């Protein structure tokens, strides 16, 4: 939002966002582990299968995540170019919504898995991503939060998403190929 220097008053304002984020990550992980995967989930139409759908939606979110970082740098005055804040908001919203069918298919149809390192990393990063994202969203309106809050939470969300892309879409394109 604004790049005004915040009056740092400790971590108290972050308590609720961080707690909520932690609970969100935990809830997703527990759900993925406890609920019996169905092997089937409704997804976005137009793809030949669930895997290509997920690979491409995640790639969309990946591209928008780069827009997020660039537009955030601009908002914080690090680029010397002014990008309208709307670009940051809407690229973020769209990126988030793009990930929902992916995460839904992962958790509902497949569940949290840990038998292969890649899948384990992907599962954990997925839960972490939504936790950090929740914390970041809830921290946004808290203007009394420490100044590092948004860059750190946003950076973590970005990093998690890149990790998610590397362990899914990149793997898919490398192993299976460019399949729509």
């Amino acid at each position, binding site marked *: 939002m604004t790049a005004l220097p915040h009056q740092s008053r400790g971590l108290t304002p972050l308590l609720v966002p961080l707690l909520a984020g932690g609970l969100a990550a935990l809830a997703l992980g527990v759900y993925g582990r406890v609920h019996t995967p169905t092997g089937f989930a409704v997804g976005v139409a137009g793809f030949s299968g669930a895997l290509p759908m997920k690979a491409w939606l995640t790639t969309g979110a990946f591209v928008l995540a780069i827009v997020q970082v660039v537009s955030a740098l601009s908002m914080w005055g690090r680029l010397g170019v002014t990008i309208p804040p709307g670009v940051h908001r809407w690229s973020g919203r769209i990126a988030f919504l793009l990930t929902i069918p992916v995460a*839904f298919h992962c958790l509902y149809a497949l569940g949290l898995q840990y038998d292969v390192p890649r899948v384990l990393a992907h599962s954990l990063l997925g839960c972490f991503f939504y936790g950090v994202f929740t914390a970041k969203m809830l921290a946004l309106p808290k203007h009394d939060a420490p100044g590092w809050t948004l860059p750190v939470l946003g950076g973590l969300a970005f990093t998690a998403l890149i990790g998610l892309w590397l362990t899914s879409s990149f793997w898919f394109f490398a192993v299976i190929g460019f399949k729509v």
Partner: protein
Amino acid sequence: MSRLGPVITLAAGAVLAVGLGVASVTATPAANDEAANTAAEAPSAGETAAAPSRSAEAEADATPSPQRTEPKKTAKADYGGYVKGNGGLIAISIRDGKAVGYFCDGKAEAWFKGSESDGELQLTGLGGAKVTAELGGGRARGSVAVGGKKWTFVAPTVVKPSGLYRATALVRGAKLRAGWIVLKNPGGGYTQVGAAFEGDTQVPIPQLQGERPTAPVTVGDTTIQPEDVDGFIEEMQ
């Protein structure tokens, strides 16, 4: 707006997820089989291929079992994949804990039979040939030993038309037998290997139709009818 915007974003995500959930629950009973098909479309893709094996476990759970203490047997599962360092294919099918397997690289072949219990698979074949595998995460992972050599493999679950096929016939007093493994390629089309023998002599094997592997094919001048696993698994035991 600026205060509520982030919350609305989160809520929109949650609503979308719930919507997908409702749609999936509604669609599941009718579309179960097709769904398993779509989910396993890429047999070599670990993630999605993980799905059908789970439904197999669900089936196992669904069968009325008065004694929960009995070792859990897989009701139905089919696996297919490449044998590492060999280039051959391996296919394994399980029906109610009974299992058959087939390894073929186009030249050598081996049939296996055995059993599955609690995700552990033990199969034996002729001449000390052996398959040992563990089931889990939508794949069979283990080793295959044939002719004094041993390789490892990871075979994801597959759905028809991928899988294991066999045909037998009597031709001029000699037994004609053929086996195939069909795997759907992630990029479309099918990979298949097989071997056919007339008596003890290996004969050229015809390709099965990718979409309809059980359609009749001709070996030499004999028309044979390939069977899928359900057609011969009992006979092999």
